[in-house]
């Protein structure tokens, strides 16, 4: 049954993708990252050394992905889109497989698969112009591997995800807590060390060749100002719409940002809130795990992982529209009544993003009221999503062994 659901979701994803591509719903040539990727791929294949001759804001594996698209025998945009279509199908399969492993009812499995398949409609066809679907696929299968106890696979996929985009690092503490339940502290910490060493190994050649360039990659993300779609920015834009507070928008770091002392303070506060929030999720999960029967932790851990990623997206100082793709493989899988609400909130986030991006994006940059209202709605839904995904005792399963049962392989 579940395999059929997964296959159906993958087929649906392909069909939806082809239909949306054929209709060309959002012909916005200025809002695609593909030319940036193509330029990078051309430079790499031309012999440039990444991070030295070619400034690049993502880890090396992302460079590998965009370069691989250039090696395919078709125009670069088509090749990149094809890779993202494959990633979408992989995400759909991973989400359905995880839903099944978590014991979610068939209708929830089908709904999760359908939601992933419908991403190009719900969020827009710009999902083909960013590589975030690849990250979503990796997250989906990382979570599946953790749920099913395939920890080597889980850590390997985690390392690949971090090497593709740094953000999955925020999940490391929870993965350690999760792994520790079945394999003990030493096993979990060892796996984390190996995963991080693998990521470091991908960076090592570039650190040797261009240490300044690699550091610049990190510095780039640290120095970024408050991006206009972030939650902190939505707060300021809301105040602007209500009270005409003065705001200044500047384009830098490949995005449109709010600049000035006020936005800088909000950026610092939101970053602090993100760190504190993620720490709070970890502490909550650690406390709840003590009262959770062994083997019943999967629901709780999924909630923790979803809440952590939602916090990272919501409270970060940059919230590009494609970032919400990262949530899809996690927040659609939560059980219980809050799980249904999280599912609905996720769909709401996707649709609200679609309503202003890309069609009204430049109106937003022009500080017009309607896109501001839509952005505030979207970011409020993200906050609600964090609340719905927050780990609760009822997220833990009850069918498992007693809490003091010996750990497997501990």
């Amino acid at each position, binding site marked *: 049954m579940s395999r059929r659901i997964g296959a159906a979701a993958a087929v649906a994803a392909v069909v939806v993708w082809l239909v949306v591509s054929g209709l060309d719903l959002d012909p916005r040539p200025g809002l695609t990252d593909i030319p940036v990727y193509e330029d990078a791929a051309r430079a790499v294949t031309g012999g440039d050394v990444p991070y030295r001759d070619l400034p690049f804001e993502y880890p090396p594996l992302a460079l590998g992905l965009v370069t691989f698209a250039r090696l395919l025998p078709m125009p670069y945009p088509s090749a990149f889109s094809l890779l993202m279509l494959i990633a979408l199908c992989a995400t759909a399969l991973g989400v359905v497989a995880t839903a099944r492993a978590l014991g979610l009812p068939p209708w929830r499995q089908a709904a999760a698969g359908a939601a992933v398949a419908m991403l190009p409609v719900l969020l827009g066809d710009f999902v083909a112009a960013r590589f975030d679907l690849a990250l979503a696929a990796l997250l989906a299968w990382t979570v599946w591997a953790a749920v099913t106890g395939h920890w080597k696979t889980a850590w390997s996929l985690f390392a690949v995800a971090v090497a593709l985009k740094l953000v999955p690092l925020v999940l490391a503490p929870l993965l350690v807590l999760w792994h520790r339940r079945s394999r003990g502290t030493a096993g979990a910490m060892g796996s984390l060390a190996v995963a991080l060493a693998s990521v470091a190994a991908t960076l090592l050649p570039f650190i040797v060749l261009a240490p300044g360039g690699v550091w610049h990659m990190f510095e780039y993300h640290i120095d970024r100002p408050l991006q206009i779609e972030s939650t902190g920015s939505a*707060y*300021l834009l809301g105040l602007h719409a*209500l009270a*005409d*507070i003065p705001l200044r928008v500047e384009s830098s770091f490949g995005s449109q940002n709010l600049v000035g002392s006020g936005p800088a303070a909000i950026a610092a506060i939101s970053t602090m809130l993100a760190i504190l929030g993620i720490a709070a999720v970890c502490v909550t999960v650690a406390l709840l795990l003590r009262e959770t029967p062994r083997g019943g932790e999967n629901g709780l851990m999924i909630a923790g992982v979803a809440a952590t990623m939602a916090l990272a997206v919501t409270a970060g100082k940059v919230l590009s529209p494609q970032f919400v793709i990262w949530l899809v493989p996690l927040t659609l899988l939560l059980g219980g009544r809050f799980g249904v609400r999280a599912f609905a909130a996720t769909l709401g986030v996707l649709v609200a993003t679609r309503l202003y991006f890309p069609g009204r994006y430049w109106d937003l940059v022009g500080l017009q009221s309607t896109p501001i209202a839509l952005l505030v709605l979207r970011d409020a839904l993200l906050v609600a999503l964090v609340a719905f995904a927050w780990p609760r005792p009822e997220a833990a399963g009850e069918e498992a062994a007693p809490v003091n049962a010996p750990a497997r392989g501990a």
Partner: protein
Amino acid sequence: MRLARGAVLAAALVAAWLPAASHAAPATPAQGLSSTAASAPDRPPAIASEKATALARGSRRLQDWIRDHPTVRTSATRDAARGEWTVAFIDRTGRVQAQVLVDDTRGTLNETRTGPQVAWQMARGYEGAFGRSVTRGRIWIPLIVLFLVPLIRWRRLVSWRTLDLLMLTGFCVSLVWFNRGEIFTSVPLAYPPLAYLAIRLALIGFRGRRAASRAAPDAPPDPPAGRRPRLTTWCPTWLLVCLMLLAVGLRLGLNAFDSNVVDVGYAGVIGADRIAHGATPYGTFPSDCGQCDTYGPFTYLTYVPFEAANPWVGRWNDLPAAHGAAVMFDLVALLGMIVLGWRLGGRRLAAGLGLAWAAFPFTAYALESNSNDSLVAACLVWGLVFAHRPLGRGLAVGLAALAKFTPAILLVLWSRHPFPRPGPARRRLPAYLGGLALAALASGWVVFLDGAEGARAFWTRTVGFQLDRESPFSIWGQHEWLRPVQLALAGVVVLGSVLVAVRPRRLDMRAFAALSGALILGIQLTMTHWFYLYIPWFLPFAIVALVPEWPRLARDDEPAAPPPEPVAAPAFAGSTA
């Protein structure tokens, strides 16, 4: 013991004698007369003074005013820097009855000031002078909705609760005319809600819930005695919390990015600067805020840490220290409401009281003006939180009185213990007096920083100034023939403040809060200068007494309700004094 009680009574009488002294906001002096005298010989006027006067006479508002207030001469002065003529219309007593500002270049009328608008800048209706954007409909109306909709019982729409909440928001009607600069309409409109709330709270305090229920035939049946107060509303607790957070986020954002600092906040920063330099604030203020040293010493002390972090630079700039202090007062009051609600009725009431404070437009008005008025509310709310501890009660009311004097009217009432706690009553009054003494010691030293000179200045700059004060911001100030009524009313309030020493015989938490609110409102009704920023002073009492469902009071012939559950859920109701 009688001596001590007598001392408290005397203090209360002094407080009651200062109905006008107890409120503080010094009037911002009009800039009109003093600023128009300058002239620059290097820039010749485009129009002559006679022409400017003739243009000024064309003002419709001027004509309406001088029809009832005849003038005998005019005086035209030109501000070369602003390129503007100020034409003053003066009556036979030498009083300026009106001013018309004429653009020197274009010959157009820039502004017409009549009556009190000449001397009082705050009477001119300048947009955003108080509260900035919070007074805009797109913020003010949503705040009213946030306040009313969750707290109204929609299934019992025709009820005292609805009327009480509407009366609390009834000050908005007055504010509309104030914002237009029509204070002869706005001022009288503030009195119906003031009077209603004072009478309603006094009735609740003296007669208890049974009386209120009899007066309201549609009121719901009384809940059984001995239970905790509860918040009956359609709104789930999680939504109350979310709405409270939404309101708090809006207020803080507006304070950070939109608000201005009125003279009340400026005063706090200057006073803190004086204290930090080892001088008493009284009689040492600069000329641009000359009458701003009229507050109690505790007010200035609370600004000291903020002024230390953002020192005053000697002028009226953005004043980040005033922002910090105002935000702190607001958050401390909010936290007090939440803790009070939690102690009284659990988390739902906590969320309800927190929302009531955060969404109430006039607390936002005080915050966006960066005034010090929420400090009084903060002290009094925490006094309610610690009402079962005489020392805490005394300390809280003492600090509130040393912030803005008005709460001194509560000294007698708060000397009573509103709980059925066992233990010797005679120990409570000394503890209460100890709290008062602690408050006096904690902040009174500021008065003596310059020795006896400072103490003398304290008296003349605070009580002396307020007693002689004239203001058009009360019906008493607008209509001098009403002064006897004002005095009579003040007498009633003073008598009431004494009467509460023995009545009601049973004093539970609701009666305690209601009578506190009634006394504060009574003082405000008799003030010569009343302003919207004073609403937060009584708001916590009104909310606590009017919004939750309180348990029925036990009758005199019934045994008192059982003592409360310990610590986690102290039941404050249904008790005897």
